[in-house]
C-alpha cells in the first residue's frame, strides 16, 4: 500500500530543463507545478484534522458541564451515544485521517519532490557554460544544488501544512469560544494582534539573516573543501597551521551571522512567552469574572483555558517551524542565485546537428577578450583545410588555448564567426559540435570512476574489445592490468581517485589519450598532449598519434617544438594575432619569432631536418 503512494510522483521527469525564474515564489512554483494536486490533498486533510481537534475541545467542555450538572446515575443512559461518538472520533476518524495525511506527505511527496527538483536543477546546471564553473567552487555548486531542493520542499510544504493547520485551528477556536461567551473572545483577538505584530517585526529580519547565513556557510564549506582539494600543497608547504587560520576566519565569519539570528530568536521567544502567559491570565480572569456574573458555565472556562494552553504549545511550534522556514527560504534563495542563472552559451533555438564530411575549419575575423576590453584575440582569421595538420605556436598567453576554447564553444565569440565545413558553430548544438572534436588537454582530469568508464567516456556504447584496443594503442593497457584500488577492484575496473591522482602524470595522460582514440572524432585538438610523458612512451604514442591523425583535421598546441616539426603547417601567434605562417623549415630559416623560439628550445641544436640527413 505504501508503494502505491510512493509511485504517484515521478522524480525524474523527462522534459528539458529551462532556466528557472529568479523570484522566490516563481522559482518554487517552477519546481512545484507538476505535483500541486498532491499538495492540495494534504492541505484539505490537514484542515479537516485541525477542525476535528478543535471540536474535541468543545466535547470536553460539554462533558464538564454535563458532569457538573448531571445525575451520576443516569449519565450513561443519557449521554451514552454522544460519548460513543466521541470515542469514534478519537479512536478511528482522527487517526485515520492522520494516517492518510502522513502517507501522502511522506510517501508521495517527501522523497519524490526534492528528488525531482535536484534532477531538474542538475540537468540545467550541466548545461551551464564553462565560464560559470570557473567562477565557483565545485563543492559550493553541488552543496547549493542539494540544499536548494531541500529548501524548496520545506518552504512549500511547511507553508501549506503549518499555515493551514494553524489558521483553521485559530478560527475554530474563536468560533467555539464565542459560542460560549462573547467576552472570552477578546483576549484571543488581542493576543492575535500582538502575535501578528511580532511576526511582522521579526520575520523579515530573520529572513535577511538566514540568507546571509546560508551564504557564509557555503563560503565556510568552500574554504574547507579548498584546503582538502589542495592538500598536497598544504602538506608540501607544511601549512596545516595556516590552513587552520584560514578556515577559522571563515568559521568566525559564519559565527557572526549566527549570533544576530539567535538574538532575534530569543527576543521573539520572549515576546511569545510573555504574551502567552498574559493571555492565559486574561482568559482565566475574564472567565472567572464571567462566571461570577453567571454568564459563563464552568465548562466554558475549562474549554477556554484548555484552548489557550493548546494554543500556547502551537504558538511555539509555529514559531519553531517559521524559524526553520526562514532557513529554508534562505537556502532556496541562495541556491536560486546559482541555479537560476542564464546560460552564457546557449544552443540557438533551431540549432541543427553538426555534420563533418570533410573537416575544414575557418576562423573568420574573430574577436574575443573574455569580456574585457582588449588584450586577447582581435580580428584573427585562419583557415585549416580538411585533413591538414596545423600547429599553433607562441609564447605563454599568446592566445593558443583561447583559440581552442572558442572553437569548442566553451565561450561565445564577441565578434566574427567560426565555420566547420561551412556551418557556423553557433548555429549547431553544443553537444553535436563537441562530439565531432576529440581533445587531449594539458590538464588531464579523470573522473572518479573506473578506468573503463573513463576511457569509454567518449563512446559509452563501446565494446570491451574496443576499449582495450584503444588502451593498447595509447600504451596504457599494460599498466592498467596491474592496477588495484583500495576496494580491491583491479585492472579496468579499478577506480581512479579524485582527479585521477593515484596515477602518475604520464599514466593519466595515456588514459586520456586512449579516451580520444576511442572517440575517434574527425577533428583532433591537441593541447600540449605529450609534454608530460617520458621520451620512450612519447615515441610510441607519436607513432599512434600519426595513425590517429590520418584522415583527420588536426590542430595541435605544443611547446615541444620537436613535436610540432612533424606537422604540415605552423601558425605563430603573438598577443592574439597571427604573426607568421609556414612550414617548420621555412620559419626556422626566416628571422622571425619562430626562429627565436626554436633557437632557445633546442639550446642551439641544428635543424632537425639536417640532423637526420647527416646520419
Amino acid at each position, binding site marked *: 500500500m505504501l508503494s502505491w503512494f510512493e509511485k504517484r510522483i515521478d522524480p525524474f521527469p523527462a522534459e528539458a530543463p529551462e532556466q528557472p525564474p529568479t523570484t522566490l515564489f516563481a522559482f518554487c512554483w517552477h519546481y512545484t507545478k507538476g505535483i500541486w494536486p498532491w499538495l492540495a490533498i494534504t492541505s484539505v486533510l490537514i484542515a479537516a484534522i485541525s477542525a476535528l481537534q478543535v471540536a474535541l475541545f468543545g466535547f470536553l467542555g460539554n462533558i464538564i458541564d454535563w458532569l457538573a450538572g448531571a445525575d451520576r446515575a443516569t449519565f450513561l443512559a443519557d449521554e451514552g451515544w454522544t460519548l460513543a461518538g466521541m470515542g469514534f472520533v478519537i*479512536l478511528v476518524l482522527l*487517526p485515520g485521517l492522520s494516517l492518510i495525511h502522513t502517507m501522502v506527505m511522506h510517501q508521495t511527496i517527501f522523497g519524490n519532490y526534492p528528488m525531482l527538483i535536484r534532477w531538474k536543477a542538475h540537468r540545467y546546471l550541466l548545461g551551464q557554460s564553462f565560464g560559470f564553473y570557473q567562477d565557483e567552487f565545485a563543492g559550493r555548486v553541488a552543496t547549493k544544488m542539494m540544499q536548494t531542493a531541500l529548501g524548496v520542499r520545506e518552504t512549500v510544504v511547511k507553508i501549506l501544512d503549518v499555515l493551514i493547520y494553524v489558521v483553521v485551528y485559530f478560527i475554530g477556536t474563536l468560533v467555539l469560544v464565542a459560542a460560549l461567551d462573547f467576552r472570552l473572545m477578546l483576549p484571543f483577538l488581542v493576543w492575535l494582534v500582538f502575535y501578528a505584530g511580532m511576526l511582522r517585526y521579526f520575520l523579515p529580519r530573520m529572513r535577511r539573516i538566514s540568507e546571509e547565513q546560508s551564504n557564509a556557510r557555503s563560503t565556510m564549506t568552500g574554504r574547507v573543501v579548498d584546503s582538502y582539494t589542495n592538500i598536497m600543497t598544504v602538506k608540501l608547504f607544511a601549512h596545516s597551521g595556516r590552513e587552520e587560520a584560514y578556515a577559522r576566519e571563515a568559521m568566525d565569519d559564519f559565527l557572526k551571522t549566527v549570533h544576530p539570528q539567535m538574538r532575534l530568536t530569543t527576543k521573539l521567544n520572549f515576546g511569545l512567552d510573555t504574551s502567552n502567559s498574559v493571555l492565559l491570565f486574561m482568559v482565566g480572569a475574564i472567565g472567572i469574572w464571567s462566571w461570577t456574573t453567571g454568564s459563563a458555565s*464552568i465548562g466554558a472556562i475549562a474549554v477556554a483555558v484548555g484552548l489557550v494552553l493548546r494554543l500556547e504549545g502551537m504558538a511555539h511550534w509555529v514559531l519553531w517551524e517559521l524559524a526553520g522556514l526562514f532557513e529554508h527560504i534562505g537556502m532556496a534563495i541562495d541556491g536560486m542565485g546559482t541555479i537560476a542563472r542564464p546560460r552564457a552559451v546557449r544552443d540557438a533555438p533551431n540549432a541543427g546537428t553538426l555534420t563533418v564530411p570533410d573537416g575544414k575549419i575557418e576562423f573568420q575575423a574573430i574577436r574575443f577578450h573574455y569580456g574585457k576590453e582588449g588584450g586577447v584575440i582581435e580580428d584573427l582569421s585562419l583557415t585549416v583545410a580538411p585533413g591538414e595538420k596545423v600547429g599553433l605556436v607562441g609564447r*605563454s598567453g599568446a592566445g593558443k588555448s583561447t583559440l581552442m576554447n572558442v572553437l569548442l564553444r566553451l565561450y561565445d565569440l564577441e565578434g566574427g564567426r567560426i565555420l566547420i565545413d561551412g556551418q557556423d558553430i553557433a548555429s549547431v548544438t553544443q553537444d553535436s559540435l563537441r562530439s565531432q572534436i576529440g581533445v587531449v588537454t594539458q590538464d588531464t582530469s579523470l573522473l572518479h570512476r573506473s578506468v573503463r568508464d573513463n576511457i569509454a567516456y567518449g563512446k559509452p556504447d563501446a565494446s570491451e574489445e574496443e576499449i582495450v584496443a584503444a588502451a593498447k594503442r595509447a600504451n596504457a593497457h599494460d599498466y592498467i592490468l*596491474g592496477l588495484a584500488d583500495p576496494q580491491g577492484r583491479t585492472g579496468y575496473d579499478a577506480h581512479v581517485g*579524485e582527479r585521477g591522482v593515484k596515477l602518475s602524470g604520464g599514466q593519466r595522460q595515456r588514459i586520456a589519450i586512449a579516451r580520444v582514440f576511442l572517440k575517434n572524432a574527425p577533428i583532433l585538438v591537441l593541447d600540449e598532449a605529450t609534454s608530460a610523458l617520458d621520451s620512450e612512451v612519447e615515441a610510441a604514442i607519436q607513432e599512434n598519434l600519426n595513425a590517429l591523425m590520418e584522415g583527420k583535421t588536426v590542430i595541435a598546441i605544443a*611547446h615541444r617544438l620537436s613535436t610540432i616539426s612533424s606537422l604540415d603547417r605552423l601558425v605563430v601567434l603573438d598577443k592574439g594575432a597571427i604573426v607568421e605562417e609556414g612550414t617548420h623549415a621555412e620559419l626556422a630559416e626566416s628571422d622571425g619569432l619562430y626562429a627565436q623560439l626554436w633557437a632557445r628550445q633546442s639550446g642551439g641544436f641544428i635543424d632537425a631536418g639536417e640532423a637526420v640527413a647527416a646520419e
Partner: protein
Amino acid sequence: MSTRFRPGQEPETRYRNMDHPVWNRVERFVEPFSDTDRAILPKTAWGFIFYFAKQARWPFIILLFVGGMVGSIDAVLYWSVGWLIDILESSTPATLIADHWHQLIGLAVLLLVIRAVVMVGAAVIEQQVIVPRFYTMIRWQSFRRVIEQPYTFYQNDFAGRIATKIMQAGESTGDFIVTSLQALWSFLTFVVLTATILSTLDWRMGAVVALWGAGYAVIIRFLLPRLRRAGKENANERAVLNGRLVDIFTNILSVKLFDSGQREHGGIRQALTNYMSAVTHLTRMITTVRASVAMLNGIMMTAIGALAVMAWMNGSASTGAIAATMGLVFRLNQMSGWMMFNINGLIRAYSTVQDATETISVEPAIRDREDATVMPRASGHIRFDNVLFRYGKKTGELFDGLDIEIKPGERVGLVGPSGAGKSTFVNLLLRLFDVEGGRILLDGHDIRDVTQASLRDQFGVVSQEPSLMHRSLRDNIAYGRPDASLDQVIEAARKAHAHDFITGVEDPRGRHGYDAHVGERGIKLSGGQRQRVAIARVMLKDAPVLILDEATSALDSDIEAAIQENLQGLMAGKTVIAIAHRLSTIAAMDRLIVMDRGKVVETGTHAELVKKPNGLYARLWARQSGGFLALGEAAE
C-alpha cells in the same frame, strides 16, 4: 523586501556590530576556538558527543535543570486548571475570592512570572550560549584533526565529502545534546508527573499512563533502530551523491568535451535513484512509526476517558479532576507526536555523528612521534638506506633495497621511464608515505624522528601540476613564507617572470594584481602562468633542498630560458633533485641517476651515460632529440 535575485550577483554580507554588554556576556561564555591536547577524537558517536559536552559542561547542566522545570510547571499548570474548576464548582461568586485569593495569586505569579522566566532562560541558554559557539568549537576541533591527516587519507575520499562531515558533526552533536536536555528531558518529567497525579485519582489511570509509556518505549525500542539504520543509509547516500556532483563539477571540462550531454545525466540519475531508495526506506519507517503512535494514543485517551467518567460516576473524582485528567491526556497526545519527531531527530543526529566520526576520528597513518624533534636548516645530505616500499601491496615493483646517496649541494637528476619510481622517491623523501623497510636520512636524521612540518620546511617543491589555492595571488605566492612583505612577494614574482602578467590581472570581483583571486586550481591562468606563480612561491620559500618535478615542461621556450637562468641562481648553494623528461634540462645537472622499475640502473654524468652503448639513458636520449647532436658539441 524583494526576493528578486539578480543572477550573477551575490547577496552582500553585512555583519552587524555585535557588541552589546548584556548579550555578550551570555554569548561569549563558550570559547569556540579552544582545543584540547587529545590527538584523536573519540571514535564512537556517544564518546564524541560526551567529549564535547564535557568541554562546555555548565550550560548543559543548567539546561538540564531548566528542562526539568519546564516539564514540571506544565504538569502543575494543568492540574491547577482542574483545581480551579473544583473551587468554582464548590464556591459561589461571593465566597470565591474571599476563600481562595492567596491561591489564586500564587497561581497568577506562577503563570505570569516563574513560567516565563524559566522558558526564556531555556531559550537563552540554547540560543545564545550553546548553539553558536559550541557548534563552531566542534567543527574547529574536527577540522584541526583532519588537516593533520596524511596525504593517503585524502586520496581515498572526496574533499567535498570530508568537508560536509565536519560541518555536520558540529550541528548534529549540538542538536543531539540540546534536544536531549530540552525536549526529551522535559517530556519525561511531564510524563512521570502526569502518571503520578493521575494515580492519586485512580491508580488504574496511572497504570494506563504507565502502560502507554511502556508502549511508547516499545515502539522506540523496536522501530526506531530501524529508522536509525535507514537514516544512516540516507546520510551516506547523500554524501555519495554530493561527492559525485562535486566530481562532475570539478571535471566539468571533461564532461563538456566528451559527454554528449545525456550520459552524465544518466550517471547522476543512477546516484539519485540510489538515494531515492534510501529515502523511501526511511519515509516508510517514518509512516509506520507515526501510525503506531497515533493508534497507541487513541487507545490511551479512550481508556483514560472511560476510567475518568467511571470514577466520576462512583463519586471518587471531582469534575475538576476529570477536567485536569483530560487536559493532561490531551497534552500528552499532543506532545507525543512532537516528541517522536524529536526522537527521530535525535537518532538522525546520532547517526550523523557516527558517520562523521568514521572520517574524523581516524588515527593518522603518518604521525609525528611523541619525541619528534624540529629539524634545523639542512645542508642537504640525503641518504636512502635499504629502502623497501610497495604502496602497501604484497607484490609488485617499486623499491626493494634501494640505496641512494646525495651529497649536500649536489645537483642530481632522476631519469627513467614513466612509473620507474621517480615521483615515489620524492614522495618518500617528503614523507608523504612511510617506508615499509629501511630508512631515509636527511643530514643524518631519520626523517621519522623529526616533525613532518620541520621536515617539509627543508624542501621547496615545484611539481608538474601546480595547484594554486582559491585565494589571492599574493597569498598564493606567500604561501611559502607567510610573514613575507609585499616587496618580497613582488621580488619573487619578478624572478619567476610572473610580475608582469600579474599586474594586468583582474578577477570578477574587481580585485587587481596581487589581490586578484585565482579560481579553483588557478584555472583562470594559463598553464604557463600558473607554473610561474608556483615557481615564485618556491623562490620565496627559499628552502635548502630544491625538488623539481618536470617544472619547466609546461612553459614555452622564451620563458623557460629566463627561468632557467633564475633557477641557476636559486639552485646556488642548494641541493637539487630534478625529475624532468626534458633531457636538455637535466644535462645541466652534476650527476644523473637512471631508474627503471624501482631500481637504480645507471648513474653518472650526462656525458658518461650518453656514450654507454645500449645504456638505458643513451636510448632515452636518442629518442628525445630525434637524432640531434649532444648538447655540449652544438653550442659552438
